[in-house]
């Protein structure tokens, strides 16, 4: 999912660099009010964990692999603002240290994975949290489905960028169907990793999980007796 230099022309890359910068600036503002000394370390650990798991490409279909994006996971664990920042740190490390994701494509990648992926995943999570029973399994399930949808959402982000400024001339609809088809499959892996990780953190430190604690205060008091 890391776009290399060259796929998308410079003008389109610049537009998305601007959009990504605006997204990161908004996230900085939001995270400043939302994070505190107690939750900041989890935001750091979330970035670290996502970096590590993004190295673990898993096979999806013959000759194709995918890896965690982590936007939904981060948003459920530490909130959408800190999630965008965590993903941005990961993408900066990958782009500058590991030559993964082009430097002129950094804005494209931050936009797709750090903004679109985060908000598609988090929006889905919020909707599902509303309708599902208020317990920890629902939180993990909602996070997993948020993860599932966040991957094709990021893939659609790429397709939009391709339509706006591809250096190649193949049809956008072909790119769209191929991107979405492949990334729905990758999304299944994303869902599994997201669901398992959220349930592991909920089992050990539910008091830190953003997507749980700001919804179930009442329930927590009742259950603690």
């Amino acid at each position, binding site marked *: 999912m890391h776009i290399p230099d060259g796929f998308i022309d410079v003008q389109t890359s610049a537009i998305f660099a601007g959009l990504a910068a605006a997204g990161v600036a908004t996230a900085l503002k939001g*995270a400043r009010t939302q994070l505190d000394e107690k939750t900041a370390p989890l935001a750091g650990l979330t970035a*670290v964990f996502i970096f590590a798991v993004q190295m673990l*490409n898993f096979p999806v279909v013959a000759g194709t692999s995918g890896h965690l994006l982590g936007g939904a996971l981060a948003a459920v664990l530490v909130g959408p603002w800190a999630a965008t920042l965590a993903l941005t740190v990961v993408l900066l490390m990958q782009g500058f240290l590991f030559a993964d994701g082009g430097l002129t494509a950094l804005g494209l990648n931050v936009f797709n994975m750090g903004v679109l992926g985060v908000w598609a995943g988090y929006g889905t999570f919020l909707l599902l949290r509303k309708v599902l029973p208020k317990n920890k399994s629902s939180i993990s399930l909602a996070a997993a489905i948020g993860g599932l949808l966040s991957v094709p959402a990021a893939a659609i982000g790429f397709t939009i960028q391709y339509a706006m400024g591809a250096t190649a001339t193949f049809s956008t609809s072909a790119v769209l169907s191929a991107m979405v088809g492949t990334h729905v499959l990758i999304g299944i892996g994303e869902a599994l990793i997201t669901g398992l990780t959220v349930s592991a953190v909920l*089992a050990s430190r539910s008091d830190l999980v953003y997507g749980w604690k700001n919804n179930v205060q009442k329930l927590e008091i009742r259950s603690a007796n």
Partner: protein
Amino acid sequence: MAGKIMFRNWRFEVLTNRKFYIAGFIVSLFLAGVVSFYASSDPDGLERVAEDIGFLETAKDHTNADGTLADYGVKGIDNERASVGVAGVIGVIGTAVVAGVGFKLIARKPKKDGN
């Protein structure tokens, strides 16, 4: 379910802050340092699509393609397992430093009573 038992020990869990973060960091080190060697080296979704549709050759070499850590390997370490493992460990520590310091600064609240 295990969750139920853990939930009863909630008070105890809150005390184990340090343990939780150490465990999370060690898991990340293990994944990036050891498990990464077993990751699939097939092209990822985007690369596959680019190849199938035909625009893969529009990709340019990365600016840092010859960098010390390019493509998650350490230049000069020939053993592939060690090379990707060390690169992963460096990435985990580097991300921890940047994100750790960054989020700590973001979370710092100016105290109301001026200190």
